[in-house]
């Protein structure tokens, strides 16, 4: 246990009675006394507060002080279009290897604060961050610098229908943000934060990047609101699964391309050709053209038995056609939900499939994602 890293909120998690587990090298709260089920439902009904400080935060800044140079450099590493990001705008993308396999998925923002709009701010997965930072160091040109902020910045997420009201009580300006935009503002006279209207639960809400020294005070402030509960990694996982959002290391990894993973929407139109100029572009273009590859789909098991990760998927004749990559019980759905890869010809919603759970075939259907409708604020 002593080798595990701790976030700045670690003592608070323990004091609140959280069950702590090792996750991506950190000692993290998997659940609080409320339990996974109630934490999940609370987030969908009111507001859940998550410590996601284990995730990697960094900045990409060009020596010439221009946004264009930084954007062009990052565009060599991700399928997303970066050069056309407006100040205060944010995009989801992936780091790919040369073969187009996914190294990690990440959020990329162009800062909106005056005097800082040339800077790119990235949030990457905790379990991948060391290799992500090394990947960027290796591939970014010498005149573009990577600045890792893990030593100074914590990250928390406030998610749920009451999030805008709760955070708006500290600074009403946060209510003007729409989904996938962000800004820098003070939440108290002495506490400046970077707030983005985004998250990974399918709900409206915010991710707040705040100094390690201030994060405890901010969490205490937010928890004073009766509508806010701390939420652990257990409910974070069931929330994102119902929302049909990929989890790195499970639904996506180096074996799959963004197209196979259903992330076509995250590759802007002019970035879909083999000569788009980023690592893995040839694979992305090939997978767009080739309809024979596998595809990540939503899977709704019939009955009540959850189908967990690695469950074999068969067609109705008993041929293996794929595998579950995330599966469990969806508290809002009130039953089992799953995602997994199937051969492309079974990817159509409504396809009948069977899942081999503990040796026995169980009926299931391919369904459209998400299971629980997204509740994003788009203005």
């Amino acid at each position, binding site marked *: 246990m002593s080798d595990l890293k701790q976030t700045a909120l670690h003592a608070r998690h323990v004091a609140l009675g959280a069950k702590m587990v090792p996750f991506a090298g950190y000692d993290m709260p998997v659940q609080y006394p409320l339990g996974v*089920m109630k934490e999940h439902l609370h987030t969908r009904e009111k507001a859940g507060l998550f410590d996601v400080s284990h995730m990697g935060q960094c900045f990409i800044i060009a020596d010439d002080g221009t946004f264009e140079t930084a954007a062009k450099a990052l565009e060599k590493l991700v399928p997303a279009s970066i050069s056309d990001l407006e100040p205060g705008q944010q995009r989801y993308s992936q780091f790919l290897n040369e073969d187009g396999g996914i190294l990690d998925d990440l959020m990329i923002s162009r800062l909106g604060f005056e005097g800082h709009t040339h800077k790119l701010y990235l949030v990457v997965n905790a379990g991948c961050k060391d290799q992500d930072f090394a990947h960027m160091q290796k591939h970014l040109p010498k005149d573009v610098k990577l600045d890792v902020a893990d030593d100074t910045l914590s990250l928390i997420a406030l998610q749920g229908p009451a999030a805008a009201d709760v955070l708006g009580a500290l600074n009403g300006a946060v209510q003007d943000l729409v989904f996938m935009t962000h800004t820098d503002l003070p939440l108290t006279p002495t506490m400046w934060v970077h707030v983005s209207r985004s998250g990974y639960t399918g709900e409206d809400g915010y991710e707040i990047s705040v100094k390690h020294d201030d994060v405890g005070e901010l969490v205490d402030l937010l928890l004073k609101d009766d509508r806010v509960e701390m939420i652990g990694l*257990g409910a974070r996982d069931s929330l994102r699964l119902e929302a049909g959002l990929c989890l790195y290391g499970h639904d996506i990894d180096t074996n799959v391309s963004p197209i196979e993973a259903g992330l076509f929407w995250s590759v802007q139109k002019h970035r879909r050709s083999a000569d788009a100029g980023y690592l893995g572009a040839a694979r992305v273009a090939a997978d767009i053209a080739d309809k024979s590859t596998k595809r990540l789909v939503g899977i709704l098991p019939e009955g009540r038995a959850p189908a967990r990760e690695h469950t074999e998927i068969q067609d109705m004749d008993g041929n293996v056609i794929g595998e579950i990559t995330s599966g469990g019980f969806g508290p809002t759905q009130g039953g089992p939900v799953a995602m997994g890869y199937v051969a492309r010809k079974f990817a159509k919603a409504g396809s009948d499939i069977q899942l081999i759970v503990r040796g026995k075939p169980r009926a299931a259907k391919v369904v459209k994602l998400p299971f629980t409708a997204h509740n994003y604020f788009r203005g």
Partner: protein
Amino acid sequence: MSVYFTEDHEWVSVDGDVGTVGISDYAAKQLGDVVYVELAEVGRTVAKGDDTSVVESVKAASDVYTPVSGEVVGANEALEDAPETVNESAEDAGWFFKIKLSDPSELEGLMDATKYKTYCDGL
């Protein structure tokens, strides 16, 4: 009627040569919200320690091992539609299966309620 416990947190309550098996309150609490129970197969002959039923929480699936050998003679079908009964009443209404003991001497190796409590306190 005596109740015995295992180190894997199952209990067996014995009446004549039939035992009723479930998981302990402690285990139910550790599992969290139970969302599914795969019932034991009635008529199956199992040996002490065999996985005989499955209990699933939001987080994970766990095997329920039989504390004694014998033939499964009943399963708690009420758990199919109301798996949360395991959280509400683990050591009573939330029982998993009934088993006809083939070797009652196996009970001697199990813990009584007092010993089991001490065992849990040490975990």
